[in-house]
């Protein structure tokens, strides 16, 4: 008995943290360490390309340069915002509508659900290459049909025109990720309790009322989750856009991720590149915090 007590008290006090140690260690090594390192070099002039720039301390010079003196960064910032809000809202609306359609009107969903998974299962690089071929100005299948229908000028190509190109890459992202939203929302719909809905119908509630006052509030955590995941993902988007346009024409489709890559791995300006990366992190953090607050604040009222 005493021995048992002793063991459990040791477990309570001393050994518990030991069990945590491996995962804490992993976190420190893989997440915290690199992050701190990034923050540290963002205050230096470290460059692999230019001599005499071996990581001398600069104070806030890099941040000053970023805020005041780098129009390309801010254009990328704007482009990224348009991209993120555009694709996430479109994917959400379309995905939700599709989920409702499947939920209410289609009995045998299994085949459709499997088909829906396909775009998500293709590697983003492959998605990029596939769409690049379909949208090719001379040989592209989609271009051909758009022209045949009179929707596209023969002298215009979707990926070569600076007014259309951002919308085009957004469209590709919507194609790839709408099914994800559909799947998650559909799972949410299927998990809702049936009784309250039956009761509401008995009480004579109209479908719109049921949707607005019951389905939506009950799905709120699921919606928050799916929007957050998609938002973060869209913010990090790199491969598809890089393959489709390389950020061009000009910097029309240069997302923050591509710009940061360019500073780091084309110019090898690692100090300034770290500043860029830190700003991207900061924006995502603020974005998530605000969103989270918005969702859970209105829930508690």
């Amino acid at each position: 008995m005493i021995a048992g007590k002793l063991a459990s008290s040791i477990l309570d006090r001393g050994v518990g943290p030991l069990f945590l140690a491996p995962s804490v260690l992993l976190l420190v090594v893989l997440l915290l360490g690199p992050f701190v390192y990034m923050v540290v070099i963002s205050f230096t002039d470290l460059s692999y390309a230019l001599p005499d720039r071996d990581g001398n301390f600069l104070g806030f010079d890099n941040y000053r340069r970023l805020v005041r003196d780098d129009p390309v960064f801010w254009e990328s910032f704007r482009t990224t915002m348009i991209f993120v809000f555009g694709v996430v809202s479109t994917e959400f609306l379309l995905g939700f509508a599709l989920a409702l359609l499947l939920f209410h009107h289609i009995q045998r969903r299994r085949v459709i659900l499997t088909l829906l998974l396909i775009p998500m299962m293709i590697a983003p690089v492959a998605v990029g290459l596939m769409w690049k071929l379909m949208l090719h100005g001379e040989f592209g299948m989609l271009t051909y049909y758009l022209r045949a229908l009179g929707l596209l000028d023969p002298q215009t190509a979707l990926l070569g025109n600076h007014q259309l190109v951002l919308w085009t890459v957004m469209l590709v992202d919507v194609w790839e990720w709408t099914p994800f939203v559909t799947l998650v929302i559909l799972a949410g719909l299927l998990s809702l309790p049936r009784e309250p809905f039956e009761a509401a119908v008995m009480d004579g509630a109209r479908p719109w009322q049921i949707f607005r006052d019951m389905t939506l509030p009950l799905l709120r955590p699921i919606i928050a989750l799916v929007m957050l995941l998609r938002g973060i993902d869209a913010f990090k988007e790199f491969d598809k856009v890089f393959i489709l346009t390389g950020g061009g024409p000009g910097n029309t489709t240069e997302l923050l991720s591509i710009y940061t890559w360019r500073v780091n791995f084309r110019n090898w300006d690692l100090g300034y590149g770290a500043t860029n990366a830190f700003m991207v992190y900061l924006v995502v953090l603020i974005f998530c915090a605000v969103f989270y607050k918005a969702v859970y604040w209105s829930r508690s009222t």
Partner: protein
Amino acid sequence: MAHKTHFSMGTAGLRFGMAAGGFVLALAIGSPAGAWSLEEAAKPYKGTTLRTIGEALPPLEAMDKLKHKFEERTGIKVIIEMYEHSEAVNKVMLDLNSRRGRYDFILQPHRELGRFVANGHLTPIDRFMSDPKLRDPNFKPEEVLYQSLWKEISWYGGKAYGFPFTALTMYLWYRKDLIEDPKEQAGFKAKYGYDMQVPATWDQYRDLAEWFTRPEQRFYGTAIQGKRHEALWYEWLNFLYSFGGDMMEVSSGSECGPIIVNSPEAVASLDYYKSLIPFSPSDTLNYFWDDVMVAMQQGKIFQMIMWNDATYAVEDPSQSTVSGKMGFDVIPQGKGGKVGQVEGWTYLIPAYAEDKEAAYLFIQWMMGFDQQLEQHQNGGASSRPDVYAHPDVQKITYSKASMDTNAVSIAKPTIPESPEITEILVLQLSNALAGKKTSQQALDDAAVAMGKLLGDCAPLKFPVN
């Protein structure tokens, strides 16, 4: 078969055979330093493995096919890693900065030279060339190479760091069959009032581009490499030089000097370049060298400015529908006269390489006439004039255009900042082509950005308000 014979001879016999072979070879050449042989020089390095990296293109594939001859003679193994252009550059950058010495020698575009040298990443090659144990007395680079190309591609700040792997230039590609077609000739003359001919001026070039643009047949007068990619910068340099402009006012690539990238000549060249968009395929602004290449191979394009190491593939009937129908020449002339844009890939030996001596032996061997000839005939671009003079090479349709362009090629910046200058210009050129900025605005912005990057050594000769 050959392997079997070697085995039956045994190791001693093999060695003897090789030494004798080397001796006979030395005698045949009649060299005074007959004692030197590759086999003898390589003896201390037998069994080592050399690793290198370069761009996956015909010249490197040709080297891959040749290397077994070296391996058989020396017992030194050579491993070649092939990547796409940017990837090959990035991998090297990471390796050099980590100082791991994964590569015993590297193949890199010469615009990277400055930043490699300035950071102490390279070994100057004179160390090996003055070592009688390594230096093949019959290899005289100061005589057998195009001196201007060698100095441009493999030298920095007055020191040699290697030898050119390829001397790449760009020149005019056009459809000879169409320019010789009497029906086209008659129609062209009726419209433009002069005889159709291989374009000698940029006005003629544009007339031809306009004449042959037939969007309903999906055939175009030209194709420009307008994607946000270094290909765009390389292509525009042809126009810039030909219109009498340049990026900086300097006499060699390793110097820093006044920025003139927004001169009136430069602006005119960009305006002209832009005026070719209507005569190009609809997504020409998303094309780089691979895309224009495919369009040409598919018979969709009349003329364009293109690289000499790609010429091989457009004349190869197994992958091109227009082989045998092509003509090649120096690019049309403007105010800047007869010019060419040169970019070389160069052999370099990293300071951290483990087997520098063996690497030098391989490079020296590759620079030999026989290897250069074979590589050249398989899509290479040699820096040895005697290779171009060979009757088999003379027969190749694009040899003359290659040689003529080599002779008039212009140096470009190789200072440590030069890759970043490329990035700046690619962005601004792309903005101008997309119609987001005028040529003047775009080049002004580029000049300002270059000024910020380079600092005091590079004042703006054409101030921006």
